[in-house]
C-alpha cells in the first residue's frame, strides 16, 4: 500500500509539473514550458512528449525536438500532431510563393473586433520606437512588448485601407524579427506569414521583399541554407516588383527590364498593381528619353485605372504628368488630366 501511495504521490507531482508547463506555454514562456514538459515526457505522462517536441521546434531546438517526436510517434501519437521545423519552413515558403504571384488574402480574424479606429501615424511611431529598442537592446528585451503592440493594432485590418495594412504588416514583421532574436523561430514564422499577407493586400512590394529577406536570414541562422536561398530568391522578385514604388527613378533601364517582365504576371483582378506598374513603366521610359513608348504605357495606365480609386495610383499618375509636362509630352499630360477632371 505504501509503495502504491508513494508512486501515486510521485505521479501527481509529475502531472502538476505538466500543468505548470501548459500554463507557461500559454503565457509564452516557452523555455520554462520545455523544462516542465521534459520532466513529464521522461515519465511518459500523457502527450508530454508531443508537447515538448512542439515547444522545442518552436524554440529552434530541432535535434532534441526530433528525438521526442520520434518517441511520441512510437508511443502511438499521430505523427502530424507536431510540425517539424522543416515542415514549418516548407509551409512558409509555399505561402511566400503564393504571395509573389499575388494570391492570398486574409485567412484569419483578429482575436477581437476593432473598438476604435486608431491613428495610423501612432501605430507607425510605436513600431518605430519598438524597432529602436530592438536594435539597441535586442529582441529578448522587447519581444513581449512588440507582441502586445501587434495584438492591439491587428483588429485595425478589419477597418483599414492599404496604409493600415502596411502599418500592421510592419508590426508583424518586427514581432517576427524579435521572436527570432529571442530564440523562437517557430513563433517568428506565423508573424512573417501575416506580414506577407497584409503587405500583399496593400500591394507593398518593398515590404514583402523585406520580410522575405528577414525570413531568409533566420533560415540561414538555423542552418537551412537551401530554404534561405528560396526565401531570398522570392524576396528578389518582390524587390524587382518594388520598382513601381519609387518616387525618384534612379535606374530607368534596369527598372524597365524588370517592370516589363512583371507586368505580365498580374492577374485580371490585380487592377491596382497593374495600373501602378504601367505608370511606373511610362515614367521610366520617359526618364530614358522614349516619349512615344512612355505615352503608350501612360495611356494604358489611365485606362487600367479607370474604375480604380487609389491615392497611391493618383500620386503616381500625377508624378507622371509632371514629368511628361517637363519632357514636353503634351498628349500624355492631356490624357492624364482627363482622369483627374473626371475624378474630382
Amino acid at each position, binding site marked *: 500500500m*505504501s509503495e*502504491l*501511495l508513494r*508512486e501515486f504521490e510521485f505521479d501527481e507531482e509529475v502531472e502538476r509539473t*505538466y500543468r505548470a508547463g501548459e500554463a507557461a506555454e500559454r503565457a509564452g514562456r516557452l523555455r520554462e514550458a520545455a523544462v516542465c514538459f521534459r520532466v513529464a515526457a521522461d515519465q511518459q505522462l*500523457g502527450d508530454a512528449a508531443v*508537447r515538448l517536441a512542439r515547444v522545442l521546434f518552436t524554440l529552434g531546438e530541432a535535434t532534441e525536438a526530433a528525438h521526442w517526436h520520434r518517441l511520441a510517434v512510437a508511443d*502511438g*501519437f*499521430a505523427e502530424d500532431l507536431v510540425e517539424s521545423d522543416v515542415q514549418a519552413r516548407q509551409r512558409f515558403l509555399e505561402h511566400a510563393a503564393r504571395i509573389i504571384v499575388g494570391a492570398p488574402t486574409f485567412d484569419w480574424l483578429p482575436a477581437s473586433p476593432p473598438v476604435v479606429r486608431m491613428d495610423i501615424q501612432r501605430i507607425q511611431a510605436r513600431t518605430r520606437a519598438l524597432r529602436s529598442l530592438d536594435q539597441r537592446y535586442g529582441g529578448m528585451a522587447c519581444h513581449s512588448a512588440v507582441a502586445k503592440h501587434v495584438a492591439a493594432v491587428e483588429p485595425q485590418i478589419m477597418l483599414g485601407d492599404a496604409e493600415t495594412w502596411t502599418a500592421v504588416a510592419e508590426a508583424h514583421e518586427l514581432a517576427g524579427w524579435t521572436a527570432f532574436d529571442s530564440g523562437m523561430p517557430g513563433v517568428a514564422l506565423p508573424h512573417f506569414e501575416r506580414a506577407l499577407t497584409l503587405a500583399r493586400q496593400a500591394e507593398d512590394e518593398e515590404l514583402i521583399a523585406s520580410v522575405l529577406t528577414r525570413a531568409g536570414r533566420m533560415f540561414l541562422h538555423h542552418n537551412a541554407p537551401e530554404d534561405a536561398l528560396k526565401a531570398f530568391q522570392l524576396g528578389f522578385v518582390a524587390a524587382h516588383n518594388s520598382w513601381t514604388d519609387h518616387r525618384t527613378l534612379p535606374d530607368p533601364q534596369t527598372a524597365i527590364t524588370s517592370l516589363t517582365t512583371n507586368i505580365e504576371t498580374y492577374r485580371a483582378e490585380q487592377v491596382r498593381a497593374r495600373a501602378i506598374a504601367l505608370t511606373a513603366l511610362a515614367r521610366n521610359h520617359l526618364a530614358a528619353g522614349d516619349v512615344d513608348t512612355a505615352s503608350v504605357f501612360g495611356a494604358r495606365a489611365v485606362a487600367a485605372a479607370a474604375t480604380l480609386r487609389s491615392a497611391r495610383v493618383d500620386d503616381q499618375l500625377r508624378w507622371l504628368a509632371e514629368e511628361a509636362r517637363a519632357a514636353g509630352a503634351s498628349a500624355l499630360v492631356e490624357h492624364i488630366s482627363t482622369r483627374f477632371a473626371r475624378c474630382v
Partner: protein
Amino acid sequence: MSTPEPDQGFAEFFRTCLPVVTRTLTALSGDTRVVEDVAQDALLIARHRWGDVRSYDKPEAWVLKVAIRLLRRWQRQHRQETPLVAVPTADAVDRVHEVEAVHSALRRLSPRHREVVALHHLLGYPVSEIAAVLVVSESTVRTHLTRGRAELRRILGGSDE
C-alpha cells in the same frame, strides 16, 4: 499513513465505480487479472484520498485517470504495452456477442486511439473530460478520436459509429 475517514459514501461509490473502471480497462487490455488488480488499486488510492475525491465534479473520471496510469505503468514494466491483438477470423467475430465484438475490435486499435475511443463510446465522455483523464491536449483527443473511429469502422466492416 493515517487511516482515512470512515466511509462517508465511499462504499456506495465503490459499488458503482468498480464495474465502470473494470469495463473500461477491459476494453483497453484483454488481461482480466491485471485489469482487476489495477481497478482495485485505483479504488484503494481513491479511498485514501476520499476526503478530496468525493468533492470532485466527477470522482469516477479521477479514478479512471489513476487506473489508466497504473495500467500503463504495469504494461511498461512488463514490456507488454497494450498489444495489438491478432485479427480474429470473420467466423469468430460472427459467433461472439455484439458487445464483445466491439471490445475485440477496440483492442485491435492502436493503444492511444483505443483509449480515446473507449472513453468516448463506452462512457460517453466529452473531449474535455477525455483530455483530463488521459493528460493530453484536447486537440490530440480530437485527432485520435477521428482516426480511431475510422479505424474502428473499417474493422467492424463499414458501419457507422
